[in-house]
């Protein structure tokens, strides 16, 4: 079993839609949860960082962590074509390394 599971998609939505991206993880000891966005031919860019269960909001983005279910989500409201990218969930294990999901490719159609 992989430590972090993420559906690779692709996910295609119309402009203005609400997007839901999800990951599951296997180890209840994992402490810090992140979402990164990666455009083609670029390095990942940190979008959200949280260490507790519940919701964290930043503009059109909301990160949700459910530690009891070992499930993390990223919601994007009013999606835009510029949101088209690969979204990577990532979990910092409490040691020094961060484990990434495989990434979900998102396409937002104008």
């Amino acid at each position, binding site marked *: 079993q992989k430590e*972090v599971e*993420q559906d*690779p998609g692709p996910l295609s939505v119309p402009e203005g839609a609400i997007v839901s991206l999800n990951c599951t993880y296997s180890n209840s000891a994992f402490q*810090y949860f*992140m979402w*990164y966005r990666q455009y083609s*031919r*670029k*390095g*990942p*860019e*940190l979008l959200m*960082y949280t260490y507790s269960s519940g919701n964290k909001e930043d503009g059109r983005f909301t990160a949700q962590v459910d530690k009891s279910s070992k499930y993390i989500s990223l919601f994007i409201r009013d999606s835009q074509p510029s949101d088209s990218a690969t979204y*990577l969930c*990532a979990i*910092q294990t409490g*040691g*020094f*390394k*961060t*484990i*990434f*999901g*495989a*990434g979900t490719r998102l396409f937002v159609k104008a």
Partner: protein
Amino acid sequence: DAGVTQSPTHLIKTRGQQVTLRCSPKSGHDTVSWYQQALGQGPQFIFQYYEEEERQRGNFPDRFSGHQFPNYSSELNVNALLLGDSALYLCASSFPNYGYTFGSGTRLTVV
């Protein structure tokens, strides 16, 4: 404020050769991590350097080695290159218990 810079951006090497990739961290960051990202996959942790020491290592063979310099910059060395080493190599710098700032990566192709 410059972010993380990596060089070179692209590289083509022959099987069996050796390669050195370089990284300058974001100003103020003292920790450097290296990741390998195969096409269509998430980044895989190679190792992390802090205070010029390798602090943690992922599941990569000894052909992968690194170094961190007193100015926090870092190098990744790969010996005896295999075709399977073809990937995007990402350098990330950070503070403890915070997310990474990534560079744009070095695209390595082994032929």
